[in-house]
């Protein structure tokens, strides 16, 4: 054959996925998604003023504020990342199909997997960048405030005649509730959970007929996913508790099909000052990737011979 092949579709999957991801990122940015960051900045700063007049000695001074900053910031990150992951993913695919832009893309030598992976990666890229910016802001505010609180506490404790070892212990405890590695790990856990949600929404949107359906079902699964661990426990302990066959089968089905979002509740524990070991974070990352990859391939499986 004397056909001259200008471009080979093989060998440049990454390039194409990257082009679509970068484009999706731009698209979302130009949809003014980053305006949320301004809202976040207001939240992070406003959370500084959440202090109550309370009892007790130096150890209570300002401790509330540090927790409040973390709660507000990570809460806002959770909401933003989950909502954005679901809504953006649920919106972008049907929009492309409706506007027929999908035709123009698939009429180019673009494998359908590349298209899906690119869209997902684009959404995740946006979530990641947003979370990184929010994290930087939170860490900054927390850093400044922690130093203020420590200075206050040390001054008060010294004035009350606390022995040096008690002051040092108090200081160390307060510094530990400031910015630390576990907190960054928690932000990464927020991102992992968002990745699962985005890939889940991608899967649903490949067979759903409307954005609304995708969004509602995704959030429903998100909610139910928080109880997957309980279903799993019921299944695993069914023998002892003496549940019936139906309960056993139902709990097994639930724990096999639903993702386990309760694992990500470690975020709450970190806000409360628990340390998140690197091993645990690595294991969580594995879980997140396991879901994201499976859901992406499942989406592709459905999408591969979908007709438009």
């Amino acid at each position, binding site marked *: 054959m004397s*056909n001259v092949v200008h471009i080979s579709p093989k060998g440049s999957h990454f390039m194409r996925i990257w082009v679509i991801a970068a484009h999706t990122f731009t*698209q979302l940015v130009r949809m003014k998604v980053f305006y949320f960051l301004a809202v976040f900045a207001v939240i992070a700063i406003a959370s500084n003023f959440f202090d109550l007049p309370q009892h007790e000695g130096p150890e209570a001074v300002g401790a509330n504020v540090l927790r409040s900053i973390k709660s507000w910031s990570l809460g806002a990150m959770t909401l933003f990342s989950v909502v954005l992951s679901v809504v953006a993913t649920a919106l972008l695919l049907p929009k492309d199909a409706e506007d027929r832009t999908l035709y123009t893309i698939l009429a180019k030598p*673009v494998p359908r997997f590349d298209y899906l992976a690119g869209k997902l990666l684009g959404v995740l890229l946006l979530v990641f960048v947003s979370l990184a910016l929010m994290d930087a802001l939170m860490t900054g505010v927390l850093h400044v405030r922690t130093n203020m609180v420590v200075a206050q506490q040390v001054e008060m404790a010294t004035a009350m005649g606390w022995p040096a070892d008690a002051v040092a212990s108090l200081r160390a405890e307060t510094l530990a509730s400031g910015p630390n590695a576990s907190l960054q790990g928690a932000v990464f856990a927020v991102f992992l959970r968002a990745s699962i949600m985005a890939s889940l929404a991608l899967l649903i949107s490949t067979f759903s007929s409307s954005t609304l359906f995708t969004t509602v079902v995704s959030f429903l699964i998100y909610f139910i996913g928080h109880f997957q661990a309980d279903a799993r426990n019921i299944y695993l302990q069914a023998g002892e508790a003496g549940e019936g066959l139906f309960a056993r089968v139902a709990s097994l089905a639930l724990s096999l099909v639903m993702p386990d979002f309760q694992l990500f509740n470690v975020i709450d524990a970190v806000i409360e000052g628990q340390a998140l070991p690197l091993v645990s974070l690595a294991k969580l990352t594995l879980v997140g990737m396991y879901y994201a990859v499976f859901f992406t391939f499942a989406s592709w499986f459905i999408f591969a011979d979908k007709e438009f």
Partner: protein
Amino acid sequence: MAESIAAVEIRNLVKEFKTSFRRKPLRAVDDVSIRIMPGEVYGLIGPNGSGKSTTMKALLGLVAPSAGQCSIFGRDSMKVDSRDEVGFLPENPYFYKHLSGAETLRFYGKLCGLGGRELEDRVTELLTLVDLEGARDRRLGGYSKGMLQRIGLAQALVQEPRLVILDEPTAGVDPLGSRQIRDLILKLRDQGITVFLCSHLLEQVQEVCDRVGIIFRGKLVREGKLEDLIAIEDQSEIVLRDASPELLHQIRALVESTPGASVVRTGKPRTTLERLFLREISEDEP
């Protein structure tokens, strides 16, 4: 050898859509075969819903044939590499509103594996070709219908494909814009690019196509060179200017006095293709 490979080869294409559970599936395309050679401009005409778009989608691998086969330059349409050398402009396209004209072309160019200086040059070249240099950095949200159609055409051409597929390229475009698009198609033909277009606007097809196919209710009812189709062998047409009613009467009497000849119709001349089309579908009516 390249001559022997058709740019478009559609063989016995059948496409059925499931409507609901129990009802019979809807047959959108029924045993259609089309073969387009490199360099040809082929027009597929038919009313809305006759299966034109479905045929094109099958050719592009956007829908899977229920039976039959499609290929582009010998490569199966269901395979990704068949789309290396094809550009497609869908009907009423909306491109990403948030991108400018140049960004749109760059995006599609990168999807085709272009990049760097080569891509930048190509973008400029295409914008000039479709007369949109002035709107280069304007977002598509602010483009008019005709401009969108032209940027769509430029997008289809970005990787210098040897085949361009246009679905209703002038639908909803004003006459001036329509003319610009027609001129562009002619320019493509001059460059030796194969064009496969479909339309329900007969004048347009007539002006640019070498060959046409008529599709109705999913069936290809007639196909051939434009002149051949338009010529009706057993009929002759006399087009007169400033003929008086008396003259017409005389001609009619003369014809009627000749054995075997008859007057089929008198009146003002019509677009021949439209007449042909109407005749074809009336014959096919069950």
